[in-house]
């Protein structure tokens, strides 16, 4: 039976399968924009493998964490950047 984890994205709880990356949680929360670019464009993951840095989010107060490379943990607080 697959284990599920609950964490919060932008203040809302989401439930994901254990072993999912934070990128999955952000997507499950219905967000398409993970961050905003220098000129204000919404951006989401591009490479899926930690190279492009477009999926950076704030996790438990630490900014600029690549969501595609970070495993979800129960109770994590994720926020997408302004």
């Amino acid at each position: 039976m697959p284990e599920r984890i609950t964490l919060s994205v932008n203040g809302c709880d989401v439930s994901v399968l254990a072993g999912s990356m934070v990128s999955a949680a952000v997507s499950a929360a219905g967000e398409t924009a993970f961050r905003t670019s220098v000129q204000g464009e919404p951006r989401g993951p591009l490479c899926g493998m930690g190279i492009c840095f477009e999926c950076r989010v704030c996790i438990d107060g630490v900014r600029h964490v690549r969501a595609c490379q970070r495993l979800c943990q129960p109770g994590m607080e994720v926020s997408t950047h302004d």
Partner: protein
Amino acid sequence: MTDRREFDVLIIGAGPAGLAAACCAAEAGRRVGVVDDNPAAGGQIWRGEHDKPTQPAATTWFERLRNTKFEFLPGTRIVGHPAEGVLLADDDRTLIELKYDKLILATGARERFLPFPGWTLPGVTGAGGLQALVKSGISIAGRRVVVAGSGPLLMAVASYLRRAGAVVPLIAEQAPRGRVAKFAAGLLAHPGKLMEAARLKWELRGVKYLTDCWPVAAEGNDAVENVTLQRRGRSWQESCDFLACGFGLVPNIELPMLLGCEIEQGSVRVDDGQRTTVKDVYAVGEVTGIGGLAPALIEGQIAGLAAAGEKEAALRFLLFPRRNARRFAQKLEHTFRLRDELRQLPADETIVCRCEDVRFDQLTEHYSWRSAKLHTRCGMGPCQGRVCGAATEFLFGWGMDSVRPPLYPVRVEHLARATVTRESQSTED
């Protein structure tokens, strides 16, 4: 705060090549360490296979790995090379000094992204990129995905996405029909590949495979909603929730360059024994040239055995399948090389450097990577030119700069240590 680890054989990259090397070196009794940026082993092609095996080769190797003794350092990036025989790693908590007798570079490859209008919209991802994201937990069930770009990876991705529940109406392959058909016919010389191709064809029944076809624009408000494709003078719109678009693979040569390894045509130069031009440093898999799973496994074994000190005899047995595999890799490159029209894709206002939002028209005034970096800050962001560098190389023919540490962003408090380098570099042997 420094941790220190010492290994007989240190392997960078836990994809198939790195894992094969780890098995062989460890089984030969050496103390082995494997480092990977991802939280789990498998690299790209075996992402997720470690606990949910679906591919026969992965199943076999992971089983073999379970009985192998080695130290795995996941979520860890190499950021510097402070001394001979030492790499500096960052695991987001601390810096770790990794000391080695032999080093095996299995850093793999990344996708090449080409800019076109709308490519920065959320939902426009790499082809391998979307596969990785779905394997990491993003749900694709019932979503409509257009797969585009170039290379056999597109078919593997489309197949995977379908199995994950996506609707994939078509694959847009930029290569011309004649070359792709010739390549398909040539598969007869590679029986294993032929089987794989036939299987893919079956899995992709109902998915249009359009050669001479490429995206010219992605459109949508907050995320991609449709893509305009072009094919033989005709263009049309396809609606989509995701555009999974990648134009081939580019070896991750940053660490090899930092070590002083000779680079040839964008990949690490190695001899038949997988030795680079730097003493005690081997390279295996995609970083030595794009070739796929088979060469990666063979090369990994060769280097693992060699690094462990196994005699040449063990290697001779492995050479034949590898030569065959490399020939296949060459055919691949010829078939899917990128066409000139793709250089016309960006509009003036199309962003090329996504980290710093540098537009195409800002770059066209410059004649070198260096000049462009200076004036536009292209390549000066956190990706350190990994995305825009491949694009500008294709668009303008600009070569890369030399590589300097840190290879990845590090915490300010760790930065000075990451910049320590050796005074001189040995390129003999």
